Every structure is written in structure tokens, then in C-alpha cells.
């Protein structure tokens, strides 16, 4: 008997699904990568907050085992779970995170513009009467000194 033949007598006949599992990992790669990225964000934030996974489980109203699954980066997380993570940890997971932030920011910008809008106090009728001239300046480039010479108009 050759070495290989002797070796084969030692091999168990039990079935294993290694190829199948490997194929599943490749097939699910897109969601697994997303899940891994979420797990990294969650673990970073937990470190930043000084939270244990048990505390996070309590905040999420789930079991610590479920948190273990989330931070392993192997779970196909439901949208509901993603929203919960996003809201509790205030980390960007879904596009809605930025959209909400954008809405708040837009509202703030609008309010600011409204408050300081220069057009608000100027009516078409009294446009000329309200006109306040600024300082006029002229910049001339001097080739010798490589500098601009400033001429200011008299006010």
C-alpha cells in the first residue's frame, strides 16, 4: 500500500459541508462586507462611549448573544436593527442618517439666511435712497516690484 492509501484508511467517512459553507461566504460577500463595516463602527463607538456590550444590549433591548452576533460582522441585519443601532449610538449606518442631518442643517441655514438677508430691508422703491456706497479700490500690478499698488478713492 502506498503512503496515500494508508493515509486514506485513517480518514473518517463522516460528511462535512466545508465547500458549501465556503461558497455561502462568497455568495453573501456583499452583505457580509456591509455587516463587517457596521460591526467595526459599533465597536469603535462602544469604545468611545466606554460602553460594555452588555450595556449596549440593554439599550437595544436585545440579549447579549444578539450583540455578539452583530459585532462579529456576520449577521444579515434587518433594517429595523440598523435603525436601532443608528439611533442609539448616533452613528451613520443608513443613508437616512445623513438625510436627517442634511434636513436639520438646511433648516438652520434657511433660518440664518432669513435673519441676515440683506434684501429684506431693501425695497425696490427706496433702493437708491438706501444705497450706501462702499470704498472703491483699484489694484494695479507693478512689474518691477511684483506687487499690486492699491489706489483708494476718496470717500
Amino acid at each position, binding site marked *: 500500500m*502506498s*503512503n496515500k492509501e494508508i493515509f486514506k484508511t485513517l480518514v473518517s467517512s463522516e460528511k*462535512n459541508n466545508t465547500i*458549501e459553507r465556503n461558497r455561502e461566504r*462568497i455568495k453573501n460577500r456583499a452583505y*457580509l462586507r456591509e455587516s*463587517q463595516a457596521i*460591526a*467595526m463602527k459599533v465597536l469603535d463607538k462602544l469604545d468611545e462611549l466606554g460602553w460594555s456590550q452588555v450595556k449596549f444590549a440593554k439599550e437595544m433591548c436585545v440579549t447579549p448573544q444578539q450583540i455578539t452576533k452583530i459585532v462579529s*460582522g456576520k449577521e444579515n441585519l434587518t433594517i429595523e436593527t440598523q435603525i436601532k443601532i443608528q439611533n442609539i449610538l448616533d452613528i451613520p449606518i443608513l443613508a437616512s442618517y445623513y438625510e436627517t442631518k442634511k434636513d436639520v442643517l438646511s433648516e438652520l441655514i434657511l433660518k440664518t439666511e432669513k435673519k441676515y438677508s440683506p434684501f429684506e430691508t431693501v425695497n425696490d422703491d427706496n433702493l437708491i435712497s438706501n444705497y450706501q456706497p462702499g470704498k472703491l479700490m483699484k489694484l494695479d500690478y507693478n512689474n518691477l516690484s511684483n506687487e499690486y499698488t492699491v489706489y483708494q478713492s476718496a470717500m
Partner: protein
Amino acid sequence: MKIVDIFAEESPGRLFSFVYKIEGKTYYQINEYDRLMELWTDVSYLRQYGKKNKVENVNQFVKDRLQDAENIQDLLEELIHTSKPLEHYFQALNNNEIGVKILSLQKGKVSKNDGLRIYALKIDADCFVITGGAIKMSLLMENHPDTNNELIKIKKAKDYLKENSVFDSESFYEFLIETK
């Protein structure tokens, strides 16, 4: 310990793996390839491993190892379907090893930058049995407790095969010379 054929379903007789009992228990864990792949795709495990080993940029370390694991998965799938021999992945653990050596200690390495190692024994051409694996953290296996432990495992596995009459050709030839 026991051995299973991990390519059995589609390309039998090429890639095997040892299965070990959990320490202090009577039952077996999953085979070494599956066990390692479970660990190497676990963000929390990789992060803790990086921190424990004082890696400077832990998140980058995690990303790199996840990528390495994907590369191994792809190569394994490729090796099942193509005529490429397993020698395409495994190479002698000892870089100075010359010639054919049965039960040679082997390491699986996808690329030069691969940070993951699968260890195996070569039974024959295109025939290997995985004994374990580890994240490569030091140049020499002896210099890190995990790789050092893998070195012990691979030697134990080799002894097991020798005890069961799977010859190491080198010792066989040594025996012939001694008896001359």
C-alpha cells in the same frame, strides 16, 4: 483527533483536515479549515486579537485580515474547479527544504502580503492534510505563542500519522542507511 476529506463532495482525495477535540471535552470541534475561517471572518475576534498584540492601527489590521480570508475562500473555490494542484497554495514551511519529502511541513499562503497562515502536512503530490492555522504576527513561528502552538500541533499530527504507518520517507531512508 480525526481526519475528514474537506473536498469530498466535489474533488475527493486532495484536501483533508484534522479535527480536534475541545480541550477537556469528549466531543469534536468543527474541522480546522472551518474553525479558522469562522475566526478570521469575525470582526470582534480580529479586533481583540489586534489589540492584544498591540497592533498600531487596529481597524486597518481587521480590514486586511478580512481581505486575506476572502482571498483564501476564493482560492479554495478555484482549486476545486481547476486543474491547478494544491502546491499552488501550499509551500514548504522550511524555506530551505529541498527535494521531495513525504509528510513535509507546509504553509498555505495566498500572496506575499498574506497575514494568515494555514498549516498542513504533504501526504503526496496534490494531497495535503490541514493541521491548523494562525495569524502571522512574527517572522519566526517560535516567536509568537499562537504560531508556536501551531508548530507543536503540526509535529503532533505528523507523529500521529507516523504511528499509523504513514511513512515519512526521509526517516525511512535513514532507517535503510542505518541497517546497511
